[in-house]
């Protein structure tokens, strides 16, 4: 069964969207101009509305992120499954490594810059760069240009700025670009959502993950007490100040358990590794899961 198509009004007005993409995806990106929307757009939209899958032929570059690539491959696999189901053509530019925030946020700007270079090299040609992490996408958005400028590399800064414009967290891409909140997922479980700090306060994904989760069939979303409080991960903070980090993670895990949920879901696997680690150590039986894996899940898939 094709997923339910639901276009939000923003779809028409979002300046980042080039509707012509949906029909002629093989056109070169330089040929497309967002400002050319007008009467043509209405005609194109009519065509799009009639399509059986919402994002037919839309080419998307997957930014897997280093932690997912190495430690949590099920998450980028889920993104591939989900985006392909929605009609996208998914590329995985293999030059990519990391967003660099591990280095940048510890103070090692030169090492952070090396990662930014790999990001630009990998994603420069793409119009839509999608990563299942508010934190990594947030780091690219907030720090990549700063690092290049600090190093005096104006050419890289300009390229990075262009990449920033085209980089999306998965939830933003689904809701803003594809105009979807119902992606046709089925997940018959009680879950609670932890809005990770960088997804809410740097990437600013806002209500999008909640909208997406509420539209999942069978899913029972339970509110997490003190949801907006940090889980205590903080990258190298968890190693430099392990006692405070553990105290924060313990409080977060306690709040998760208090909801009675079977799964704790976030849009960032790093935070999930922290919360999930405490949940596992304490034999709570609550399992961590990434938002992408819930959205990719359909009836008939093994639980």
């Amino acid at each position, binding site marked *: 069964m094709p997923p339910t198509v639901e276009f939000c009004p923003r779809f028409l007005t979002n300046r980042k969207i080039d509707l012509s993409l949906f029909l002629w995806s093989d056109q070169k990106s330089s040929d497309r101009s967002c400002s050319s929307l007008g009467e043509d757009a209405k005609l194109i939209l009519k065509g799009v509305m009639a399509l059986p899958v919402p994002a037919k032929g839309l080419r998307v570059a997957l930014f897997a992120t280093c932690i997912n690539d190495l430690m949590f491959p099920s998450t980028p696999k889920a993104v591939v499954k989900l985006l392909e189901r929605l009609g996208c053509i998914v590329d995985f530019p293999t030059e990519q490594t990391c967003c660099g925030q591990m280095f940048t946020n510890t*103070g090692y700007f030169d090492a952070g810059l090396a990662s930014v270079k790999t990001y630009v090299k990998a994603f420069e040609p793409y119009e839509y760069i999608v990563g299942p992490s508010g934190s990594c996408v947030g780091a690219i958005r907030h720090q990549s240009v700063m690092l290049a400028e600090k190093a005096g590399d104006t050419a890289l800064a300009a390229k990075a700025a262009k990449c920033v414009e085209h980089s999306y967290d998965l939830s933003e891409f689904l809701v803003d670009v594809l105009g979807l909140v119902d992606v046709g997922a089925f997940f018959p479980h009680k879950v609670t959502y932890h809005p990770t700090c960088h997804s809410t306060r740097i990437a600013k994904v806002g209500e999008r993950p909640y909208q997406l989760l509420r539209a999942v069939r069978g899913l029972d979303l339970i509110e997490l007490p003190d949801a907006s409080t940090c889980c205590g991960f903080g990258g190298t903070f968890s190693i430099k100040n392990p006692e*405070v980090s553990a105290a924060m993670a313990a409080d977060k895990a306690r709040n998760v358990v208090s909801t009675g949920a079977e799964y704790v879901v976030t849009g960032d696997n790093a935070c999930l590794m922290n919360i999930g680690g405490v949940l596992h150590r304490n034999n709570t039986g609550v399992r961590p899961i990434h938002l992408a894996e819930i959205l990719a899940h359909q009836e008939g898939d093994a639980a």
Partner: protein
Amino acid sequence: MTINLSISPRRTPAPPPGTIGIGQPEPVASPAFRENAKRQLQNTQMRKNLRHATTTIRNKRLLRVAEVPNWEEVRSAGAALKDRIGRHLDKYLAQAEENLTKAGAHVHWARDAEEANRIITGIVKSKGVDEVVKIKSMVTQEIEMNEALEAAGIAAWETDLAELIVQLGHDRPSHILVPAIHRNREEVREIFNKEMGQYGTPPPDKMSNDPPILAGAARRHLREKFLRAKVGISGSNMVICDTGTVCIVESEGNGRMCLTLPETLISVVGVEKVIPTFDDLEVFMKLLPRSSTAERMNPYTSMWTGTTDGDGPQELHVVFVDNGRTNALADPEGRSALRCIRCSACMNICPIFERVGGHAYGSVYPGPIGIILTPQMRGINSAIDKSLPYASTLCCACADACPVKIPIPDIIVHLRNKIADKKKHDMHPHLEPTVMVPVNWMFNSAKHFEFVQKAVSFAAGTALKNTDYLGPMPWPASPWTRARDIPAPPAESFRQWWKKNRGGRR
């Protein structure tokens, strides 16, 4: 500054040994943040008090902020004003001096804590008195004025209720707005019963721990000090340049007593506290009370321009203090920390502050603003100052709460960069920059990353074949795995899966 305690008995309760001031000539002796935090985390009572207090105040702040329809605009106005003040600080300070002097105030300039204390002690001594009453003030905490006065045989009496609790408790403030936030009412009762009588009017017999009863005891204790004091000392929230007016914002009215009863008033002011015009007050009077005590308007706002014959203090001294502020001003990326209006919204929302309390920070300025302000003012030489910028998960809750939009997380990262650079160029090698070399190698090219993935996959497919999660492990994994398990890496990375399943494509 060395204080010789053997000359005569102290006049005021002694604080704990060590220093949390800014501008001491010798390096600060406090251990690094991690050691302090570890100890503070064991204080269950403090954690309970802090959780209760910070949760209450931050929820109330959200309500008060939501009432202002143009809150974001007012925040931007506050930030822009403070930036302008920083850009033209030389001009505004000269204008402030001119107009303060015209109004009848004596203006003094102090480069550092020592100079400020010398000026203040000199004024007090010239009045022939051996005690002063003072309003709660961060800058006097910062220069450790009370101890400097004590060393000169002058007793400085704190009159703010929470500062009184801290002073009588031989303690240090743990919060810039609510200095005794780490104490509960039972502890306050004990402190009052044990100490109050030794320094003046004792508390009533069989005093309960009911807050109004405790406040009543403090009132009676302070009354005689207010009536006796010939010199009052205040800080200042704002000094208005075009009128030469000093302004204090407070909640309890003790400030009003100190500002009106003594014959001489000394106001100690950080150089960044000047604001250009009287009209600019409207911005800060909207931002400050809502962000600090979560009130629409604070109970007492006092403003004074010079002196008035026969009414209030007859002599007014204003001591402008730099004490490291111009160090921060000289750093283009760090200078916006000087926008701070000392509201404490960042502390109240900080999940780390909530768990460790202010004492862990080894500075009069704790919490998010403290970890960016202290190392800029004091330098990054001591163990504590080098560790402060790392006392953050970069969760960014502080940046959202800050009424003058200080980009606290960005300044934290900037300071971490300064510290990392310093480590790299130090004479003796550090572990961290050494570790960063191979880790950077791993990520600076996809080929290297793939190589590491292959090694990890091999380990995962052999040694860790039947393992889902890894439990407690020795160093270097110990900091992480002492508190939480870590998932075992999968036998196949995403990249390997992609190659296998989407082979031909990029």
